[in-house]
């Protein structure tokens, strides 16, 4: 069975600085997708960034980028120029590409606080 682990329950960053959230996963599948979702206090689940396992190039979305290390099964999220609005719970999620039903498997989450 696939598992996702986020070993940092809480992280803190100063406004305008950079922070990296860690995520590791375990799978025997060769092809899969990885996602980072943001959950602010409203508890809405918002997609931040996504990565296909077969792509070596790391995904980027404006101030958000990932460091995808397939051999190490690591998928970290880097937030540059942190803003107050980035404060939220961040979930890393895994989905097998050929997984019928396409369920997402989430990590435990990392609570990010941003200090002004």
């Amino acid at each position, binding site marked *: 069975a696939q598992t996702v682990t986020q070993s940092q329950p809480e992280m803190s960053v100063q406004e305008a600085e950079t922070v990296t959230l860690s995520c590791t996963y375990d799978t025997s599948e060769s092809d899969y*997708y990885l*996602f980072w*979702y943001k959950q602010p206090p*409203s*508890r*809405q*689940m*918002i*997609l931040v960034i*996504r990565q*296909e396992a077969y792509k070596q190039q790391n995904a980027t979305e404006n101030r958000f980028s990932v460091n995808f290390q397939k051999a190490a099964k690591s998928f970290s999220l880097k937030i540059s120029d942190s803003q107050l609005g980035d404060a939220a719970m961040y*979930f890393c999620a895994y*989905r097998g590409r050929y*997984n*019928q*039903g*396409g*369920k*997402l*498997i*989430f*990590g*435990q*989450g990392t609570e990010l606080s941003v200090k002004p």
Partner: protein
Amino acid sequence: AAGVIQSPRHLIKEKRETATLKCYPIPRHDTVYWYQQGPGQDPQFLISFYEKMQSDKGSIPDRFSAQQFSDYHSELNMSSLELGDSALYFCASSLAGTFQETQYFGPGTRLLVL
């Protein structure tokens, strides 16, 4: 852009009552997923439907049932409610065969069982 719609947004029920949660996917999306998120926990997959057929099932209690209708909306029916069913219930939708089949989440239904 249109998003996933869930209703009701909040629901309060007594133990042993029944609840029905509704989900309206993004237009043209053909796949619907249900997740349950307890307080301080990550979302847990319950069940999914593709083209009105159940495609996968997770840790969904036998007291719960769900279906997807011809217009692709989905309903989650919960009977004999227990205190432990109090949670945030998310519906997500995706379009099969598209960009990683990314799941887009609705705002959730907050269920409180007293």
